């Protein structure tokens, strides 16, 4: 599954949304009205889904799905580079 699809699926399942309610370029606090506790839950769920470390400072209510995708792609790529260097 692509990174963006996995992020969407995580948010949709977590917040019990209909897929059409989640717009990729919309801030989480706007279209779906995510609150601070939901963001904490989202950070934990994304960490589990992608095996990367995230902080509540990185995933804020001003993030969109597109922003989160960029962030996770970057962490995944850093992780791959570190792994290659170790080898």
């Amino acid at each position, binding site marked *: 599954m692509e990174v963006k699809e996995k992020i969407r699926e995580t948010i949709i399942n977590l*917040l*019990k*949304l209909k897929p059409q309610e989640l717009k990729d370029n919309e801030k989480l606090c706007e279209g779906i009205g995510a609150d601070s*506790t939901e963001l*904490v*839950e989202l950070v*934990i769920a994304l960490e589990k889904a992608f095996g990367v470390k995230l902080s509540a400072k990185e995933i804020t209510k001003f993030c969109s799905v597109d922003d989160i995708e960029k962030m996770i792609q970057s962490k995944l790529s850093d992780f791959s580079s570190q792994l290659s260097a170790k080898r």
Partner: protein
Amino acid sequence: MRPIAITGIGIVSPSGIGKRQFWANIKAGRSFIKSITRFDSGLYPSHIAGQIDDLDAYTHVSERLLKKMDAFSHMALISSEMALQDAGLDIQKEDPNLVGIFLGNAIGGWLYAETELRDLYREGREGVSPYMASAWFPAAPQGQVSIYYGIKGFSKTVVSDRASSLMALGYAGKTLGKDKLNLILAGGMEAPVTPYALLCCNTYGCLSKNNDNPQSAYRPFDKKRDGFVIGEGAGIVTLENIERAKARQANIQAVISGYGTTCDGKDRINPATDGKELARAIQMALDDAQVSPEKIDYISLDGMACDDWDLGEVSAIKQVFGDKAKTIPASCPKSMFGNLLGASGVVDVITTVLSMEHNLVPPTINLDEPANNGLNYIKKEAKEYKINKALVISRGRGGINSALVIEKGVR
């Protein structure tokens, strides 16, 4: 106190959700006490309760919100919505700064708390829902209801064991009487049918162990009583000043006219058997209502079905009412659906308001032979009787006493 109008009723109980279903079962004298099926409770000394299994069928709350709250908040939200509808109120048209919420609860939302504590010890801190902190504590329903409706006025959660919701009504009435608010959602909620909560109730030591006969287990004032049975649910009413209720042509279902409360100050669990402090609370409520004892024509009993509690309650009533105690119809309808602990007082008030409306006194079921004589117990079946002024008694662990006077119609 300044009389306060009850203009809407919302009820979620083992005997029914919504006042029509609830009243139909109450007047029929049906018991809704059953063996607990939610979890394996077979090894608990008492494993019977008034349980609600069809809450989701009545919900108007989204799944997204539901996962953030315990069942007791869910029950409060459903009851609030019912009360507002019954009152014909559109809360969005109210000034939010002049709407308040006063609720009572004894133990908090333990199903949520237990589940998350289990996960904490199994999976570590990351296994715990971030909603845990805001879901379990006794004021959580007050928070959820106020957020749901955008309520911004003075609000309060009373934690006074089983007397909590009657106290919440009393304080709500006093606050309205000072013209601090226009409208208050008042009542209480409790969800004790969970493994840990049931364990705490069992260790408290006053629960019936008559597990083989759940429907006849809760026997207040009966010689064969062996304790009360817990139940879950919520009751919420809309309260308004009489002037405002009249101005908007609301259906004034009853009027709260007096409130009194005292403490026994004797023991951390048991009440004083002499009933002196309860008698003082009752007298305080009557004085507050400017109603003399002979004008009361129904008493809604607390009815713990334990020797000391029943003895003290009957003694207190005799001290206040004297010989008249023998003639005033008195009953404990919660014998049908269980003691809703912190929500028991408001549910008794709702039952009494419906009794006034239908001119029918609901019975204490399972009361075959009174252990404490001197009251006019309405037993087994409902009895036609016109109630104009009633007294509702609610008591909590350690000797917390509260009493409320309610009247049919405006004087």
